[in-house]
């Protein structure tokens, strides 16, 4: 999402520009003349690349497809995604199908060096050899681009690739099972779809917390809500059909996809087959409710009164006084997982930076929430966040002005709209 907005803002601010639209980076391209006929394997590989959301990391804003160079902000430093076009010098043009399989399956590059786990091989290890070969065949058909991404900005000791060996000992288990797993949904969610990369909490070393799969995770100043069966902070209240609708259209009666999930919907889930999103939904609905219950928040009545006043003035135009909003247009707040997650990062971030619902073919309108960073101070944001987390039946820990200040320092420099008047 953030990088889409950057693309969009550059287009908006630069003069005499061909205008690109949110979530539509290809809008200015002329229609392709005669697309070459794809083999069945290449078409399969292309569909798998959609499931894996390869573009999500390997396209940089305004850059050619799959040429890499997108900065990934990890807790350990900045890692730039690789060029995976078949360019022989700067891409993977010299790789064999075996090399490709080793990268996916074992996290090892063609030259034998360890890949950093920002490339999610702990998930991709579940990809079958047949799938790997199809992906490889597809990537061979992409236009080769000569582009070398910037060097990673990793401080010592994370700049020593060899240390990944020890990380792997603790955090990585190569999949040696010959089959694709019990169900299609599980195969996608735990494998190529790498949902846990965001939605599973991480250890201090950045590995998945054992035994806490899909219980919600924090990454790059976002909190990805739990995908468990929990009613408040997970998907417990969503029927399977609603999950599928969300993945396919970017919105449903419960929530609108925006932020990094908006990108995932744009490039991956909205383009998956109906059968695949249904399979994902079925698998996610099989997840039990298992989050530790949060104790009822201790609420300061003054803060709640202040939060309510701010809410009615600033938020109710879209979300309505009763929070019920207009589902699929503006998301309802009662029952919302983003609102009630134990970690308030995302709800604070929405208030500070604003956000934009993903545009999909089914639902093309990028309905947006504006930035309030310039309008509300830390205590005001904290009050209104605390209010929406604890009204209309919602319950979640209070947000402190300090929580807001910390996040503001990291994200508020990127408002969604033009900051000042022309005159």
């Amino acid at each position, binding site marked *: 999402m953030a990088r889409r907005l950057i693309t*969009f*803002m550059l*287009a*908006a601010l630069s*003069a*005499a*520009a*061909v*205008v*690109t*639209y949110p979530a*539509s980076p*290809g*809008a*200015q*391209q*002329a*229609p392709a003349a005669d697309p070459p006929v794809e083999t069945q394997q290449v078409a399969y590989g292309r569909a798998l690349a959609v499931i894996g959301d390869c573009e999500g990391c390997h396209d940089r804003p305004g850059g050619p497809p799959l040429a890499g160079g997108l900065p990934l902000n990890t807790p350990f430093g900045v890692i730039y995604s690789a060029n995976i076009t078949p360019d022989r010098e700067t891409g993977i043009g010299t790789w064999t199908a075996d090399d490709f399989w080793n990268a996916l399956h074992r996290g090892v590059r063609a030259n034998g060096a360890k890949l950093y786990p920002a490339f999610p091989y702990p998930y991709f290890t579940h990809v079958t050899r047949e799938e790997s070969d199809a992906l490889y065949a597809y990537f061979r058909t992409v236009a080769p681009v000569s582009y070398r991404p910037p060097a990673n900005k990793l401080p010592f000791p994370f700049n020593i690739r060899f240390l990944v060996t020890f990380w792997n000992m603790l955090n990585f288990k190569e999949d040696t099972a010959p089959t694709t797993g019990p169900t299609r949904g599980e195969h996608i969610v735990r494998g190529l779809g790498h949902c846990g990369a965001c939605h599973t909490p991480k250890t201090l070393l950045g590995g998945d917390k054992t035994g806490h799969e899909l219980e919600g995770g924090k990454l790059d100043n976002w909190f990805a809500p739990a995908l468990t069966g929990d009613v408040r902070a997970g998907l417990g209240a969503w029927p399977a059909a609603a999950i599928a609708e969300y993945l396919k259209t970017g919105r449903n009666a419960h929530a609108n996809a925006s932020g990094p999930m908006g990108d995932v919907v744009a490039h991956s889930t909205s383009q998956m087959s109906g059968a695949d999103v249904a399979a994902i939904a079925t698998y996610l609905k099989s997840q039990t409710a298992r989050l530790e219950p949060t104790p009822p928040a201790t609420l300061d009545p003054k803060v709640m009164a202040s939060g309510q006043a701010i809410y009615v003035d*600033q938020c109710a*135009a*879209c979300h309505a006084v009763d929070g019920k909003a*207009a589902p*699929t*247009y*503006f998301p309802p707040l009662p029952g919302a997982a983003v609102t009630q997650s134990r970690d308030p990062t995302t709800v604070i971030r929405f208030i500070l930076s*604003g956000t*934009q619902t993903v*545009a999909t*073919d*089914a*639902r*093309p*309108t*990028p*309905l*947006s*929430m*504006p*930035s*309030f960073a310039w*309008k509300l101070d830390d205590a005001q944001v904290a009050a209104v966040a605390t209010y929406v987390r604890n009204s209309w039946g919602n319950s979640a820990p209070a947000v402190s002005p300090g929580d807001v200040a910390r996040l503001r320092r990291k994200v508020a420099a990127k408002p*969604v*709209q*033009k900051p000042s*008047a*022309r*005159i």
Partner: protein
Amino acid sequence: MATRLPAVDAVLIGFGWTGAIMAQELTEAGLNVLALERGEWRDTPTDFAPTFAQDELRYYWRHELFQRLNHDTLTIRNKASETALPMRRLGSFLLGSGVGGAGVHWNGQVWRFLPSDLKARSHNLERYGKKAVPDDMTIQDYGVSYEDLEPYYDKFEYLCGVSGKAGNLKGVIQAGGDPFEGPRAREYPNPPLDMPYAPTLFGQAAAGLGRHPFPHPAANMSRPYTNPLGVQLGACTYCGFCEKYACGNYSKASAQTTILPVLMRKKNFTLKTNSEVVKINLSADGKTATGVTYIDDKGQEFEQPAELVVLSAYILHNVRLLLLSGIGKPYDPATGEGVVGRNYAYQITSSVNVFFDDKILNPFVGAGALGTIVNDFNGDNFDHSGLGFIGGGYVGLLQTGARPIETHNTPDGVPKWGAAWKAALARDYLKTTTISTHGAVMSHRGNYLDLDPTYKDALGRPLLRMTFDFTDNEHKMSDYLTDRAAEIGRAMGGREIKVNYRKGSWDVVPYQTTHNTGGAIMGDDPRTSFTNRYLQSWDVPNLFVLGATAFPQNAGYNPTGTVAALAYHAADAIKTRYLKAPQQSLVQA
């Protein structure tokens, strides 16, 4: 030296309502379409978010959404014997600029013209005889009928999600709607907006006088709406900032909120902003448009070849670009010959303030097209025998929102400033409402547009010159409407009323209405019209000119519904007929 660019199937000049409609239709037909917009890219979250969209100082008084007159304006005079002077500040009308055009800051008032409006000349001659249309009144028939346009009116109303109540469904009059309207095929897509107190009182008073009140059809959403293109609009919050403002809540139809989310995703559509077309280029024989020349904001010049050229800027810019490009014969008021600049018209407005002592009206609650209307005195809905004028207008109580800097109605006898003024304003602000009249302007031989001989724009091109004044017909008609409004005002039962007639010559300073029309009108005869009934140039068949530019005279209704219907009508003809035989006239003269 202009850089020559690769050709496109169609180039659109200007990207407001008509440009967006035509781009959507032509890309659906598979054409590779380029839109050139001289202003900036603008969209809801980036440029008019609800955190700052309701900023009266920034947007209305400092004109942020409007055309910058230091770049390009026009010169104004009331009659040909005067020397025209440049309009250096926007007043009577508020020209748009940028993506979405003036359709970003409109009210959302969506009307259909009456069937008789579209044949104003033949209808009035038939009903009232030759004397009803004086020699200098150059009104004409449109060349299209209401029946021709009905499906396209309908299409626009569903695109916009108009909130309203039908008054005539397939010829059957409907309770609660406008009984005077032409028959419509189906009900409006959304129910009327919730009616505030003052328009409710107006409706009761009007009904008591035997009039036929009904809710104004509004492109302000009475509920969340998904249009036929799949684009989503939110419900209106009645914030009172439509007119002169952009909507921050996706609740007012505009190109941005109804078409662009779909159009901008298409691979066969390209929009270039900050790109000002300076000329439509013609072939050596002058019978074919070869494309356009445009300049970006760095001063670089480009030649853009195109098979089809669509002029879709605001009417004043359309007419000027035709004159600057040497297309069509300029109109000469001395001889009455020529077609470019001919039949410029406008509208005439007036108002009646009603002051109450005992009723809190909360006038700040508002929406652009929120109110109660009577059409009993619009068009030819009433007998004009012996009245000395033709045409009419609506009388209505529109509660568009009483923005604090702009809204300070005080009764007669109150000083214009000082302590007494403040006291009256404080006493009356919540208890005052305003009835408005919105009347037609007929075309007149002496009202026209041409190029100014003296003043030039930032690029060194002559400014457009407007020669316009109200005639006796307009004043008689407006006074008649104002008297009818005053009757209803009195019947509303307030403490007092104040009647504001429109007297004297047209004045460019006070805001009246951005409903300029004509200048390259449609019709059946190439000697008296610039385009045929499909908005296709008679002289240059691969040039189409959209917008109110085509109106032979103005009606008593807001023009956008008809502007859009004519654009859809033209688009349909291009898709179904023109593209099968390009470069050919769709009508044989």
